[in-house]
């Protein structure tokens, strides 16, 4: 892809080389090696610090399994929450782009409230406030009341899902808008209904834009599941952090227990970030539209010598929607 972007013309050739000092005649050590040395130094300093702090490695090894068992709860919560968030974000975004005042109103209220209040507060609302309010309204002996008393894990999943859904509404909205009015018009001109248009034309293209940032949200979500530990879950549903916290308090091994938990979160994030960057590279291939520099846009009209620009190349060039460009040249 890189060479094609460069071929777009002047202005893009200033792409920064990956390592600024790797050109011939530069100092012997490459930038990457230097960065690696800095990392190693930091680890040595930390190691000295842990040694001075009488770090109990044996305890860490012995209790690693207990803490790591929480991994499945963490992942389960993250996967369920992101699923809820994606569905909410999709409908939230469609509603935000709709001309229907009810849809727009509900959606804008949703995003405003869930982005405007702290996540931890929302989690406690699901966990504590919902059953209380439901009890007051329905009466504690109503047969629906017991459904409103959410388990910690369920409250946590709903809380994370609704909160992330509100943020991701904006991602989905931007993705849908990125598809451009020409596609909508082409679909409308064929006689498609709104649903057909969205399902067949707009959303498949929008998802190319939406999926990479959604991966980022998922990575953030995995870390935010640690908040679930504040809700009183049964042992079976203890996540990584809850398990680390419990051990830390019981055995006065705060540093060790939390370092183990942090290490697992960190490893998890590193792994998913690796796949995320692969995904992003994959997604940027193919038919994603490229914006053409204004100067180049001009030359395409001005003469036949533009060399065909994108012709036969692997790139779809989006022209501006204006009708004036060709006419200006003919008229005056």
């Amino acid at each position: 892809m890189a060479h094609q972007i460069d071929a777009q013309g002047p202005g893009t050739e200033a792409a920064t080389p990956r390592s600024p000092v790797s050109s011939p005649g530069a100092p012997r050590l490459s930038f990457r090696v230097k960065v690696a040395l800095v990392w190693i130094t930091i680890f040595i300093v930390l190691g000295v610090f842990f040694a001075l702090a009488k770090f109990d490695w044996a305890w860490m090894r012995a209790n690693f399994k207990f803490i790591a068992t929480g991994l499945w709860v963490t992942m389960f919560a993250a996967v369920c929450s992101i699923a809820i968030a994606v569905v909410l974000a999709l409908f939230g975004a469609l509603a935000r782009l709709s001309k229907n005042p009810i849809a727009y109103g509900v959606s804008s209220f949703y995003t405003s409230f869930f982005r405007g209040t702290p996540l931890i507060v929302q989690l406690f609302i699901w966990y504590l406030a919902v059953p209380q309010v439901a009890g007051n309204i329905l009466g504690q002996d109503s047969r629906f009341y017991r459904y409103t008393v959410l388990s910690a894990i369920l409250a946590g999943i709903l809380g994370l899902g609704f909160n992330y859904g509100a943020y991701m509404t904006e991602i989905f909205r931007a993705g849908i808008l990125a598809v451009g009015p020409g596609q909508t018009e082409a679909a409308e001109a064929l006689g498609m209904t709104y649903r057909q248009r969205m399902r067949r034309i707009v959303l498949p293209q929008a998802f190319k834009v939406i999926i990479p940032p959604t991966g980022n949200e998922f990575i953030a979500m995995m870390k935010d599941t640690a908040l679930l530990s504040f809700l009183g879950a049964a042992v079976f549903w203890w996540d990584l952090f809850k398990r680390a916290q419990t051990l830390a308090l019981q055995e006065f091994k705060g540093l060790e227990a939390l370092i183990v938990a942090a290490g697992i979160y960190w490893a998890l994030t590193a792994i998913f970030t690796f796949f995320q960057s692969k995904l992003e590279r994959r997604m940027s291939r193919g038919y994603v539209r490229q914006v053409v520099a204004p100067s180049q846009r001009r030359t395409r009209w001005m003469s036949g010598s533009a060399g065909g620009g994108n012709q036969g190349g692997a790139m779809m060039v989006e022209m501006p929607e204006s009708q004036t460009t060709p006419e200006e040249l003919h008229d005056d």
Partner: protein
Amino acid sequence: MTSDQVVVRVEDLHKYFGDLEVVRGVNLEVHEGEVVVMFGRSGAGKSTVLRCINFLEDPTSGTIEVDGIALTGGHRNRHQREKIRQLRIRTGMVFQQFNLFPNMTAIQNVMEGPLTVKGMSASRAQGLGRRLLERVGLDDKAEEYPIRLSGGQQQRVAIARALAMEPKVMLFDEPTSALDPELIGEVLGVMKSLATEMRMTMIVVTHEMGFAREAAHRLVFFHEGVILEEGTPDQIFEQTRFPETRKFLDAVL
């Protein structure tokens, strides 16, 4: 050459963009098999009139009738939206920017309307797609994605996509304006063959006066939101009485 059957009727069409009145009372009738070329300066309202015919722009006031389906501008309820959809199904549209669906191959683009809108079976749509791509000379590009096609090829696929709905009238909105000069001919060639071989009813907004002279039955000159004059290519090119038309033709010819 053309029948008496009116396919498209535009009555007293007005269109405002904000406070600006872009179309100021346009009347137009297009008969079956007729090729009408609309031309005029930028901002004269010709593209807007074309886009009002299939309600990509909602007319501020006036009546549009396509193949017996008549609609007025203004507020839309569910029933009217369905009527607009029926009108669009009978109307093929070709855009300046092609607007092919980039996530679909050439043949999938052509099949999309019949499959999704008409509920045609996949095998029939496939056959139709093949025939239409052959018609526009692109049967060998059926499995290519639009990015792999030249502008001229993309526009020919777009024509095939519009034809797949078997429209009563084809609307062309500056179909060659986004093309490099060497690619214009292939698109105009396909359009001419539609007119002569298929007797397709066509309304074309274009500055290609060579095409207008050869293929059009009637030329319509737009000036400041109204139709200033209309006539056969001979009448317009040789005998126009209007200095505005003369000046425009001198500029583009």
